[in-house]
């Protein structure tokens, strides 16, 4: 009896898990259109859809995203934002009448996993291009495979300058970490905040390291001293030792380069009663930081390349809908992910009836237009340089302090 009970419990838990998994990373398609590839656990409705025509085969795009693991919230961002974009494309008639189907795979934020899944996508002739991965590290692990297999790897969020440069099949639109690092040094921490002695905390990942690599020379050129500069692993939760150490170096400004633990660092700095001015960077900028830090994050400076202001109705509506669906506010990452799908689908549409992986690459490279997150035109390498706004958190809200042209003033 007890045995039976235990087994039933396990089975019930397993089923719950499977149901949960199946409902999360599902290919986005309107109910009723049954693609060649049935989604796992999908139920396949019967109602007809008005979008893309039924007799044309769907166009399948693979997505690498960290749906579980420590970066799961960014995986969720990918899933929600990209699904919204795919729905928009399909609602407007699809890609030349073909339905766009995104197939999400969970890379868990793990580089090996990402590379493996990329080669799985590349081996599947039905997949025309790959979006992702979220982090630079994972995207760069997948890049050599996509280069060899000659399929587009388009990461909307990777920011390492070496990613797109590594292959003609790799593209990125988040702006380069190298440029963001030096922008932060020269304008945000230097010109705007007027700091002299800076302490830098950075997450020792690809993103953090490449920002710091570029921040350091630019800061020194701007006449600042970096009195403390230390990295920590991305699973770190306790920063008290580092903070005490930084405090002993007596900086007049703190820069935090992080994506996942930013709120922890801020809370712990304020927790010991240290009210030094703090600056963070674009990828940290989210409503979540404000939710997680409350009063602790007042007056913090940040750069953003995208700002979902009420004056821009399209961007504002996007941010609202994203928040409704995801359960948390839209970060810049959400906009990048959304644009990624739109840009890619335009590149596919430009191929006409002859959709090949090579044609998609060539059309993607020609992209030149203005999207939700601003103008996008790829350089030779397949990356772009973004402009930044400087914002400050005031009364629990981001307020723009300097416009896009602050660098030229």
């Amino acid at each position: 009896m007890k045995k039976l009970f235990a087994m039933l419990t396990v089975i019930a838990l397993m089923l719950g898990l499977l149901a949960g998994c199946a409902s999360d990373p599902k290919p986005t398609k309107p109910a009723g259109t049954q693609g060649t590839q049935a989604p796992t656990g999908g139920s396949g409705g019967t109602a007809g859809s008005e979008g893309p025509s039924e007799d044309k085969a769907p166009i399948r795009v693979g997505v690498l995203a960290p749906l579980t693991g420590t970066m799961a919230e960014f995986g969720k961002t990918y899933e929600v934002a990209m699904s919204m974009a795919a729905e928009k494309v399909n609602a407007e008639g699809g890609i030349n009448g073909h339905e766009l189907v995104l197939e999400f795979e969970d890379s868990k934020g793990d580089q090996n996993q990402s590379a493996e899944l990329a080669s799985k996508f590349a081996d599947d002739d039905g997949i025309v291009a790959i979006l992702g991965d979220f982090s630079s590290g994972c995207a760069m692990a997948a890049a050599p495979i996509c280069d060899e297999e000659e399929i587009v790897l388009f990461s909307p969020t990777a920011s390492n300058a070496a990613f797109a440069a590594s292959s003609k099949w790799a593209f990125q639109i988040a702006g380069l970490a190298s440029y963001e690092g030096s922008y932060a040094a020269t304008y945000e921490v230097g010109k705007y905040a007027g700091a002299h002695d800076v302490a830098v905390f950075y997450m020792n990942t690809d993103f953090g390291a490449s920002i710091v690599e570029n921040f350091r020379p630019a800061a020194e050129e701007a006449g600042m001293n970096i009195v403390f500069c230390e990295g920590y692993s991305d699973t770190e939760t306790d920063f008290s030792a580092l903070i005490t150490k930084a405090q002993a170096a007596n900086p007049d400004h703190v820069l935090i380069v992080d994506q996942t633990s930013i709120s922890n660092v801020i809370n712990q700095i304020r927790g010991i009663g240290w009210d030094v001015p703090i600056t963070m960077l674009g990828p940290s900028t989210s409503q979540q930081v404000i939710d997680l830090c409350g009063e602790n994050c007042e007056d913090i400076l940040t750069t953003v390349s995208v700002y979902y202001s009420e004056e821009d109705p399209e961007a504002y509506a996007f941010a609202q809908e994203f928040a409704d669906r995801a359960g948390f506010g839209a970060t810049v990452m959400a906009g990048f992910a959304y644009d990624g799908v739109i840009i890619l689908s335009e590149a596919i549409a430009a191929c006409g009836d002859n959709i090949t992986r090579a044609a998609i690459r060539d059309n993607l490279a020609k992209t030149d237009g203005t999207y939700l997150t601003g103008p996008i035109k790829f350089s030779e390498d397949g990356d772009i340089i973004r402009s930044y706004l400087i914002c400050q958190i005031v009364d629990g809200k981001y307020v723009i302090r300097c416009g896009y042209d602050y660098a030229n003033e």
Partner: protein
Amino acid sequence: MEYIISQLINGICQGAIYALMAIGYSVVVGVTGMVTFTHGEVMMLGAFASYYVFLWAGNNLFLGIIASFAASWIVGMAVYKICYEHFFNAPRHISLICTVGFSMLLKNLAQILFGANRLPMLNIIENQVYSLGPVKINLLQIVILLVVFALAAVLSLFLNRTRAGIALRAVSQEKTAAYMVGINVRRVAMTGNCIGCGIGGVAGMLMAIYYQTCYATMGGTMSMKAFSSSVLGGMTDVRLSALGGLCIGIIENLGITFSSANFRDAFAFCFLILVLLIRPQGFAVKKGARP
């Protein structure tokens, strides 16, 4: 000097949380005789339970402790039923793998139920900094130390002064002999496991309060630290496990003081390896010794 003392206080505070996790861990291991890798997730669920209690009932630390203890107790029952009960006479690795699998299940279930993003646990304890001479300590650290010591004292009283506690220690020492003197081994093992898990839950709550966030994957690295602390203390000895936790916390923080935070885990584990090389039984007096 005051810098080193501040770092020591950081280390003691973090060590205290490790100690609490290790106490729970060693109670579980002692009483079931099997290693568990679900402890991190048990702690995480305890933290979530207190999160919701704080949300509904306001910042009442006492209620939070009860909620996290109770929630982890219930999870502990499930862990016991699924991972241990049928495997007492099976090779040890079977229940070990079972706990590994169960921990993944719990982690993913938590991501589905509570979402993948971090939840704020702000200002549960007022943010206040006290200066004792050159040394600064905040209220949060004081409260955490107090809770840890109070719980350790209660547990120690329970284990040494009550009938149930003595039965628990008897089961921990020798199951067959305990059975022969009329102790209901299965029930005691289950209760002991649940107590260990409950303490783990409170540790999870304290961690969430200390770091002001609560998220589904928070158990991962922490359970490794709990495991190493209790290995350092000789696996089943509650007091020595607590000492092991404190040592690891302090070593880590001093390590960061003199080098870099990148090597936090390296310091903890190198220390562990060194101690085990010299004393394979950890801090315990002799192999298999019990309090």
